[in-house]
């Protein structure tokens, strides 16, 4: 009598367990899909200063909104539900709407209870919320030869993060182009340049670093940098051959006739 009952209860236990496990596997896969899908941060959504890399950020951010509350410029927002936005409830800002004003005391980082915004960020100039890229030279007024310069003027790290690089304006033939040029080493990604661009659609945009930048291979060495570091040529006994520099006798355009060697082979007759 005991045996059939035992097997029946065992059978029941096993089917119940299998049912629960199966249901949870399906629900869990669905949840995992949603959770992973949320990791695709849109390119125009920037994280607050000090935010960990997106993968780490989503393991740390509890979406409490304390950074948003302590942002004095109402730059930061919490993401609403929706398929295309940043992960639900996480903080972000859109540079073209309200850029980051780069507070010296970084209140958003101070407010974060979990470390999702890295407390080791003490100097706002070290923040890397993204990198500005002049995405559209064809519409940038400076590339048309005008002196708009607005992005350069508003940059909190003027002359470091954005410089104006003068070059010859080939179109007019006798003007200069002052090209706004971003130097990623100094750009915090605050977005003031993108916000201030006078065009209807900004020609300069802050992109996530992964989109804005390439990466040099680990084994690449720039000879001139290595030489400076070393204080001397890296290889002894290199012969320094004459360089073709612009100037009389060496510039075919300025003085046609070809390159004249600075030395003559003895006994060559000339």
């Amino acid at each position, binding site marked *: 009598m005991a045996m059939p009952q035992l097997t029946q209860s065992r059978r029941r236990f096993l089917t119940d367990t299998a049912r629960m496990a199966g249901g949870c596997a399906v629900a*869990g896969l669905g*949840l995992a899909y*949603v*959770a992973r899908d949320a990791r695709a941060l849109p390119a125009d959504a920037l994280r607050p200063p000090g935010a960990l890399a997106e993968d780490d950020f989503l393991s*740390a*951010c*509890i979406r409490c909104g304390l950074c948003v509350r302590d942002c004095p410029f109402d730059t930061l927002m*919490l993401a609403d539900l929706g398929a295309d936005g940043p992960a639900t409830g996480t903080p972000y800002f859109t540079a073209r709407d309200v850029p980051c004003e780069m507070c010296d005391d970084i209140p958003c980082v101070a407010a974060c209870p979990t470390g999702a915004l890295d407390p080791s960020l003490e100097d706002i100039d070290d923040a890397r919320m993204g990198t500005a890229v002049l995405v559209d030279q064809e519409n940038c007024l400076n590339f048309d030869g005008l002196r708009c310069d607005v992005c350069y003027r508003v940059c909190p790290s003027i002359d470091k993060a954005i410089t104006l690089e003068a070059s010859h304006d080939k179109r007019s033939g006798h003007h200069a182009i002052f090209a706004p040029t971003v130097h990623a080493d100094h750009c915090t990604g605050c977005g003031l340049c993108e916000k201030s661009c006078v065009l209807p659609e900004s020609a300069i945009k802050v992109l996530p670093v992964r989109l804005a930048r390439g990466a040099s291979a680990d084994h690449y060495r720039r000879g001139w940098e290595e030489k400076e570091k070393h204080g001397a040529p890296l290889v002894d006994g290199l012969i320094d051959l004459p360089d073709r520099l612009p100037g009389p006798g060496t510039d075919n355009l300025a003085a046609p006739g070809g390159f004249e060697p600075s030395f003559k082979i003895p006994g060559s007759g000339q």
Partner: protein
Amino acid sequence: MSANTHASVGFEALEAKGWLGSRRYLLLRRSSQLFFLMLFLTGPLFGLWIAKGTLAGSLTLDVLPLNDPFVALQSVFAGHWPSAVALIGALIVLAAYLFVGGRVYCSWVCPINPVTDAAHWLHRRLDLPKGWQPKRSARLWVLATVLAVSFGTGTIAWETVNPITIVHRALVFGLGTAWIIVAAVFLFDLFVSRRGWCGHVCPVGAFYGLIGKTALLRVSAAKRSACDNCMDCYAVCPEMQVISLALKGAPGSSPIILAGDCTNCGACIDVCAQNVFAFTHRFDESVVEPPLKSAPEQSAANMMHKE
């Protein structure tokens, strides 16, 4: 029980204790839910900042950090060790609920509770079938699944779908889309599964239920001898499985509702015309002795008293 209780739940209590007396804890709970919401809302509404943040993590009066321990646990599973502030905040919350009962969060604080209570009210009104009723242990499975998904994806997984924080955040930060979540939970509880979300699915409640196993604040069926088997308490209790052991236990057994599932909502206290139930501490084993009259006489006397 169903046909009987469906027809008449709460009428005896209303008669015996009056409108207010039979809704004391319900009104207290609604006030409490509003109170905890207003702590967060006075800032954005009136510029008076009491609690900043949301239920997932907050800072009260700029000194007291409070963090949801379940969110912190998921964060650990996802591979991030929260910094000291969050850990202290989580420990404070944990300690508080170890004291008052974990699921006090569910019935006295959670903003989804009014939604599921409303769904249940309408469910009774429309006399709908109870629908899909997975085992109570299902939510523990969901809890384990959430932790596994947090571990697997490296995200605080439940926060991508958690109706509690989504709704709370929407209310406090003025986001628009959360009504979809409210509607989904309401419809789920109304048509798919009676008391389904809070009672069978929600892993947050499951987590707080585990915390509540050793809670000091408990409901006792101290006057269980006065029970006239009207079954109203079973009808109103969101976790009716917790009642029997205390109410119908053998003489000498504990009258305390010790199950972690009990949300300390006090609905049984409100609905009982015989005042069988009362809040007390978990070590209060006192039972009001049955009167000298034998049980059948007692209930007969009750019946006569009512008529």
